[in-house]
C-alpha cells in the first residue's frame, strides 16, 4: 500500500476517478489513515463532521430516529452532506472496527472546486441515482435506450387534401415514392394504405375519381419526433400496425416504417407479435416459447429499462391470451364475457412467465355453464404453452374465478366486510385486473362497484395496507443487507422491497379510485392527484425500476421459480449494490409514509 496503491484505491471510488492527475496527486498528500474501535461515534447532530471518510476495512452504520438507515462497507465513503451542509441527519457509529482514509474537511471542501466532484456530491438522491445509472450503463452498449425517432431514416409523408380525387392522390404518392397516403381533413388526419385501396376501390367498387376521404381510415396513430424509438416499437406491437406517422409540434414530418425500425434494432419482438397473430394452432404458438427469453436477454443487454421490457412482454403475452381466447371460445359467446388477467400480468409487470392469475367475468343472464368447457380448454392450452399453474388456483378453470357480474359484486361486498387474510389476498389480486379479451365494459362495471364500496372506507383500507409491514426491509446488520442463512446468504427482493411498494401503491390507488393497474402508472396518477409529491414519486419509480432490474437478472440466472426472487448482494457490482441500498432506503421511507397515511400503528 505504497502511495501508488493508495492512489489506485482512491481512484477506484466514484467520483474520484474524475479528478485530474494533478488534483489527485495533491489529494494523496493530504490523506491520512485512521483507526476507530467499535462503537465510536464519528458524526452526530451535536458532533459536527471533521472529515470525509473512505472505508478500507470495517463498517459504519448511520442511525436516524433509532433505526439503521444505511450501512457503509469497504470502498464506501461518507458523508458529504454532513460536510457541505454542516449538519448530519443521523448518528454515524462504527459497527465493526474501522480502518479508513480521512480527508480533512478543508481539503474536502477544496476538492469541491472540481466541477464533476461537486456535481456528484451536491445532487439529491434522484439525480445521483440517474448519475450512477448512467455511469453504470456507460460500460454496456446502450444505443437502444438513447436512440430517438429522429435518429432513424424517415419516409416522406405524402399529404393530400380530403377533397382530392383518389387518382390524383395516387399520382402524387407515386411521385413521392411513399407506401401510404395521408389525408388532411379540416382539423384532423386520416390514412390510406394499400389494403384500403384493394378492399375499397378494387373490391368495394368505389370509383378512382371519387374523393379520397371516402376510403381513408381516421385516427392516425402518431409519435413525436423526439420520442424514443423503443416507444415506437411498443406502439406498433400494441396496435398491430406496420408504420407510425411522425410529428413535430403537431406537424407531420414523415413516416416511420416497421421494416426500418426492425432492421435498426435487429431483434424479433415484432416478428414474434406477427407470428402470434398468424398462428393457426397451438403448436405454432408453442414454437415461439424460446424466443421470449432471448428477447428479454437481448433487450436487457442493450440497456432497455425493465419497465419497457415488461410492457413489451406483457403486450406479447396479451396477444397470446387473446389468440387462445379466440381459439377456445365460440364467437357468439365472446361478447358476453371478459377474460381478465390479474396479479403481475394484470399490472403488466411480469417478465419471465409467472403464475397464471386469470379469471372470467360473464354477463348477467347468460348461462355460466356454456363457458365451462371453453375455459377448461383455455387453461389446458396455457399450461401446455408453459404458463405455470397458479398455486392459489386463481385460474379460469376454477369455478370460483368464473362468475357473473352480479356474483362478482357479491364477492366484492364480502371481501369488503369480512377481513380474513384470504379475502385481502383475493382482493389484492383482483385489484390488478386487466381485460385482455371479450367485453371490457364488464370489468369496468366491477371496478366502479369496487371504488364505490371503498369510498371513504379508510378503516378497511388500513387493514389491507397493513400487509406491507409483514416483511422487514432487508437493510441492516450484515454487509448492509440482512441476508437469509437458510437461503445461502441471500435476500428476498420480492418480500423485502417489491411487495411493499406494489401493495402500498395498490392500496393508495384503491383509496383514490385510480383505474391504472401498472405500478409506475399508478404512482404517476397519485402524483397528479397530489397524494405524493413529485420528488417522492420519482424516487419510488427509480427504486421500483432498480429492484425489478436486479430481480430480472436474478430470474434469468435462476434455475427455478422459487429461487428467482433471491439475490446475494455480494455478487452484485458495487454500483448495483449502492442502488439497491438506496432503493431499500426509499422503501423504508414509503413504509413510514404509509404507516402515517393509514395510521397503521393503530391497526391491530
Amino acid at each position, binding site marked *: *500500500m*505504497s*502511495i501508488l*496503491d*493508495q492512489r489506485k484505491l482512491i481512484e477506484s471510488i466514484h467520483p474520484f476517478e474524475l479528478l485530474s492527475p494533478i488534483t489527485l496527486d495533491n489529494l494523496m*498528500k*493530504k*490523506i*491520512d*489513515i*485512521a*483507526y*476507530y*474501535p*467499535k*462503537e465510536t461515534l464519528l458524526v452526530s447532530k451535536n458532533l459536527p463532521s471533521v472529515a470525509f471518510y473512505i472505508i*478500507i*476495512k470495517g463498517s459504519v452504520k448511520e442511525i436516524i430516529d433509532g433505526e439503521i438507515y444505511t450501512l457503509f462497507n469497504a470502498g464506501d465513503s461518507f458523508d458529504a452532506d454532513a460536510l457541505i451542509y454542516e449538519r448530519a441527519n443521523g448518528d454515524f457509529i462504527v459497527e465493526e*472496527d474501522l*480502518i479508513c*482514509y*480521512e480527508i480533512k474537511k478543508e481539503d474536502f471542501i477544496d476538492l469541491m472546486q472540481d466541477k464533476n466532484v461537486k456535481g456528484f456530491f451536491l445532487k439529491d438522491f434522484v439525480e445521483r441515482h440517474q448519475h450512477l445509472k448512467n455511469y453504470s450503463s456507460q460500460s454496456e452498449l446502450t444505443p437502444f435506450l438513447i436512440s430517438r425517432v429522429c435518429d432513424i431514416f424517415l419516409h416522406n409523408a405524402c399529404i393530400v387534401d380530403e377533397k382530392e380525387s383518389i387518382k390524383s392522390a395516387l399520382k402524387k404518392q407515386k411521385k413521392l415514392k411513399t407506401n401510404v397516403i395521408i389525408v388532411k381533413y379540416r382539423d384532423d388526419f386520416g390514412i390510406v394504405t394499400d389494403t384500403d385501396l384493394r378492399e375499397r376501390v378494387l373490391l368495394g367498387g368505389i370509383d378512382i375519381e371519387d374523393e379520397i376521404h371516402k376510403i381513408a381510415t381516421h385516427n392516425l396513430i402518431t409519435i413525436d419526433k423526439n420520442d424514443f424509438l423503443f416507444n415506437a416499437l411498443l406502439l406498433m406491437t400494441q396496435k398491430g400496425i406496420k408504420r407510425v406517422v411522425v410529428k413535430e409540434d403537431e406537424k407531420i414530418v414523415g413516416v416511420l416504417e416497421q421494416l426500418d425500425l426492425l432492421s435498426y434494432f435487429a431483434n424479433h419482438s415484432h416478428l414474434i407479435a406477427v407470428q402470434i397473430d398468424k398462428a393457426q394452432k397451438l403448436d405454432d404458438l408453442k414454437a415461439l416459447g424460446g424466443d421470449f427469453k432471448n428477447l428479454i436477454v437481448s433487450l436487457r443487454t442493450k440497456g432497455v429499462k425493465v419497465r419497457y421490457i415488461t410492457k413489451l412482454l406483457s403486450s406479447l403475452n396479451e396477444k397470446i391470451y387473446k389468440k387462445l381466447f379466440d381459439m377456445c371460445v365460440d364467437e357468439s359467446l365472446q361478447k358476453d364475457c371478459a377474460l381478465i388477467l390479474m396479479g403481475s400480468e394484470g399490472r403488466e409487470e411480469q417478465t419471465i412467465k409467472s403464475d397464471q392469475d386469470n379469471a372470467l367475468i360473464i354477463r348477467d343472464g347468460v348461462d355460466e355453464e356454456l363457458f365451462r368447457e371453453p375455459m377448461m380448454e383455455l387453461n389446458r392450452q396455457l399450461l401446455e404453452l408453459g404458463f405455470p399453474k397458479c398455486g392459489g388456483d386463481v385460474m379460469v378453470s376454477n369455478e370460483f374465478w368464473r362468475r357473473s357480474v352480479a356474483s362478482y359484486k357479491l364477492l366484492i361486498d364480502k371481501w369488503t366486510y369480512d377481513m380474513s387474510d384470504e379475502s385481502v389476498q383475493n382482493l389484492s389480486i383482483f385489484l390488478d385486473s386487466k381485460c385482455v379479451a371479450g367485453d371490457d365494459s364488464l370489468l369496468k362495471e366491477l371496478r366502479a362497484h369496487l371504488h364505490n364500496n371503498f369510498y371513504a372506507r379508510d378503516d378497511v383500507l388500513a387493514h389491507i395496507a397493513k400487509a406491507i409491514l409483514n416483511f422487514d426491509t432487508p437493510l441492516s446488520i450484515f454487509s448492509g443487507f440482512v441476508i437469509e442463512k437458510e437461503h445461502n446468504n441471500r435476500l428476498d427482493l420480492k418480500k423485502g422491497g417489491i411487495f411493499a411498494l406494489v401493495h402500498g401503491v395498490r392500496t393508495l390507488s384503491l383509496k383514490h379510485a385510480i383505474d391504472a393497474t401498472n405500478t409506475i402508472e399508478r404512482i404517476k396518477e397519485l402524483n397528479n392527484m397530489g397524494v405524493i409529491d413529485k420528488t417522492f414519486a420519482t424516487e419510488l419509480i427509480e427504486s421500483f425500476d432498480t429492484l425489478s432490474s436486479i430481480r430480472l437478472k436474478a430470474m434469468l440466472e435462476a434455475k427455478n421459480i422459487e429461487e428467482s426472487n433471491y439475490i446475494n448482494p455480494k455478487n452484485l457490482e458495487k454500483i448495483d449494490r449502492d442502488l439497491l441500498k438506496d432503493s431499500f432506503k426509499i422503501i423504508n421511507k414509503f413504509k413510514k409514509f404509509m404507516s402515517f397515511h393509514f395510521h397503521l400503528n393503530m391497526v391491530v
Partner: protein
Amino acid sequence: MFDFISKFKSDKNRKKLKDKNFEFLFQEDRSGEFVVIDTETTGLNPKEDEILSIGAVKIKDNKILTSQTFEVFLKNSKEINSNSIKIHRIRPFDLKDAKTTKEGIVEFLNFVGSRPLVGYYLEFDVSMINKYTKEMLGITLPNKMIEVSEIYFDKTISLIPQGNIDLRFDTILKKCGIPNMGAHNAVNDAIMTAMIYLKLTKEK
C-alpha cells in the same frame, strides 16, 4: 532502578555524539507522535548486510499520518544479492536515484527526531541503522522502542496461556483483521505495522 540504568546508558551514548547538530535526538519528545519504521536490507546479518531502503510513517492519536510518509533508497557498496531481490523487489536499477547513505540517514534522523519508534522485529531494523549512526555520529539510536509483536504476544498469551503463539507478520495481520495490501516495500510494511499498532493499543 530500571530508569536509572536506562538514563545512565543514554547519557553514556549521548557523550559519544560527535556532531552537536544532532543534539535534538536526545531532547524530550513533546510531539505526542510515534514513528513506525521498516527497512529493506540486502540480508539478515547486521554485520555484513546493508540497508536498501527505509520507510517510516508517523502515528498521532488514532491516525496514521500517511500524508507525511518517509521513504528513502540508499546507495550500497556491494552488488545486490539476487536472492534478496526476490523478496524486496528492489533491483539495482531502482537504486539509480538513490541517495548516499549519509544523506539518507540524516534525512531519516530529521524525520524521526526523538519520537518513540514502533516496529515489527524493530531490534533488527534499529541495529541495521545503528551500524550507520555509530560510524557517522558515534551513537546508537537513543529513541524509546515499542515492539508490536511483543504487544501482540502479551495480549494473546492471556487468552491462550499455554499455547504457542504464532508471531509471523502475516499471521498477526490476519488475526488483527488488517487488510494485506499488496506490495512488499518499506513504507507499505510500515503502514501495515502502524495499523497493527493502532488496532492493538486502541481497541476497546
